[in-house]
């Protein structure tokens, strides 16, 4: 009998969990993942999910990124019909993919297409971490390769925002080979004079950092993004080396000469627009005209 009383008492008592106390109502407010600053969600949306207190760049999804950069209604998506199959018959793989399709509303871990940024047409690829950690399997590789090829055929610049844990394990060596496929596509694109801009966002690692993410004419990163080839844990376990706190951050890479620039998310659109303008044919035409004028001027004199 006593036992019964105790059990009931236990069932009825809610012990406030430490985490629950710190939690903020879902949807209305959000706590910064770095400094724990609490902010209205609407406010956070306005500042592109960058914490106004510590400037921590929260991960954002592919379409939010596209909306934040491209001129309204200008983006046209490519190849969303490509679907993942299960080439190695890996247990539970397709279920996991289906779950992520439902969760994210995306067909795979990457959105490709073209649109205009400040009026300049550009091809673009944005990876989405929420979908299988942004990992690259056959579909991701194929979509990127096709996007780069289209950019080449249509003489468009190509911008890629990377966010990926690397190659997708469940497609084995097929995933590995996507590194080669995408890199060859980029080589063809660059050979024809195409402008390639890579922006590495948190996180960009493994097979993605070791292929297209590092192949831009300009390689950029968002502040604080984790970028590296091997995982921190793997390095610590295999080499027993002590790693600095900022190891494999964008700032670490910049210091070691691996990046052209770190770009704050608030500056991203402006920076990309400027770069695109500086590479656009219009600018080149103006330059050519000025040159011709100068030559003519010289002859006259």
């Amino acid at each position, binding site marked *: 009998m006593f036992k019964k009383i105790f059990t009931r008492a236990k069932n009825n008592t809610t012990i406030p969990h430490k985490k629950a106390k710190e939690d903020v109502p879902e949807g209305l407010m959000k706590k910064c993942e770095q400094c724990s600053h609490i902010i209205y969600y609407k406010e956070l949306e306005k500042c592109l999910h960058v914490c106004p207190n510590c400037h921590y760049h929260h991960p954002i999804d592919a379409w939010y990124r596209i909306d934040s950069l491209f001129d309204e209604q200008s983006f046209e998506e490519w190849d969303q*019909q*490509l*679907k*993942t*199959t299960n*080439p*190695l*018959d*890996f*247990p539970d793989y397709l279920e996991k993919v289906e779950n992520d399709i439902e969760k994210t509303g995306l067909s795979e871990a990457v959105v490709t297409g073209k649109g205009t940024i400040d009026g300049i047409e550009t091809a673009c690829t944005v990876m989405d971490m929420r979908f299988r950690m942004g990992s690259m399997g*056959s*579909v991701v*590789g*194929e979509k990127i*390769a096709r996007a780069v090829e289209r950019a080449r055929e249509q003489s468009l610049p190509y911008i890629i925002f990377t966010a990926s844990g690397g*190659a997708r*394990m*469940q*497609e*084995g*060596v*097929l*995933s*590995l*080979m*996507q*590194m*080669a*496929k995408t*890199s*060859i*596509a980029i*080589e*063809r694109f*660059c*050979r024809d004079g195409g402008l390639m801009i890579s922006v590495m966002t948190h996180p960009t690692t*493994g*097979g993605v*950092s*070791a*292929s*297209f*993410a*590092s*192949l831009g004419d300009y390689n950029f990163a968002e502040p604080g993004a984790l*970028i*590296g*080839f*091997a995982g921190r844990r*793997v*390095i610590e376990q*295999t*080499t027993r*080396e002590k*790693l600095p706190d900022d*190891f*494999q951050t964008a700032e670490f890479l910049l210091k*070691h*000469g*691996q990046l052209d620039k770190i770009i704050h998310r608030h500056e991203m659109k402006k920076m990309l627009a400027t770069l695109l303008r500086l590479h656009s044919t219009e600018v080149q035409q103006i330059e050519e005209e000025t040159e011709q004028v100068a030559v003519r001027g010289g002859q006259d004199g």
Partner: protein
Amino acid sequence: MKHVLEFERPIVHLKNKIAELKTISKDSDIDLTNEIKRLEERLNVLEDDIYSNLTSWHRVQIARHPGRPTTLDYIERLFTDFIEFHGDRYYGDDEAIVAGIASYKGSPITVVGHQRGKNTKENIRRNFGMPHPEGYRKAIRHMKQAEKFNRPIVTFIDTKGAEPGKAAEERGQSEAIAYNLKAMAGLTVPIISVVIGEGGSGGALALGVGNHVHMLENSTYSVISPEGAASILWKDASLAKEAAESMRITAYDLEELSIIDRIIVEPKGGAHRNVEEQVKHIDEALTESLALLRKLSSEEILAQRWEKYKQIGVYSE
């Protein structure tokens, strides 16, 4: 016998027995010829049985056999006039990769390959065949030189993967690999890649963007080691054996997935059993590949490479 693989134990057991009987018959006057003959026949059947039914995990073990021939073993036997060149001209010389020029059947070629050691001392010097960025930069420097002098390129792939370490990250391991993939894609000379041992992930692929890619029968090529896959997927590295089977990493798997062009057969039990015989099989494959690829113009070489990799991948549309 050194380095007995677990699945080979019954063979070794039988071999020991035969040797024992032979000693007995030599030392005493008992005639055991029939007995020995019977056992030798049994050994043949057993060997055939075991070696024709190798699982992926067995092949992983053969690919990792300490006595398995390395890049330099093959270079020495396939080519003449080999001259090794060192350094990436930026940072240092990475001995996990060897590179140089040589003569193959009268014509110059450039050869680049991962190099592991066969003992601990050599493995430390060669970092177990796991290159740092300077290794990849050395490799591509020589491949670009091959293009300049219009020499075909042969690469040998044999690595657990690129070095995972602090120094490697600081010097841009990702960039070094990525750069090689792109640069190899743009070379106008034929590239033939042969996986001779382990083809471990991006660190292997960085020498592997070939017009033709061949694999020795017992070599492996994978996105991650079976141990790594097991620990990521099932959080248990001891399930490596299971991972090896499900990841499709053998030459036969890659042929089926239309990734490689040819499986190069190995002597019974693996390349380490008979290096000379192995060299003959590689020689055959190289000769045929070169004959085919030499017919192509620079543009055709680039186009062939793109077509080859473009079709890799499985999806529905």
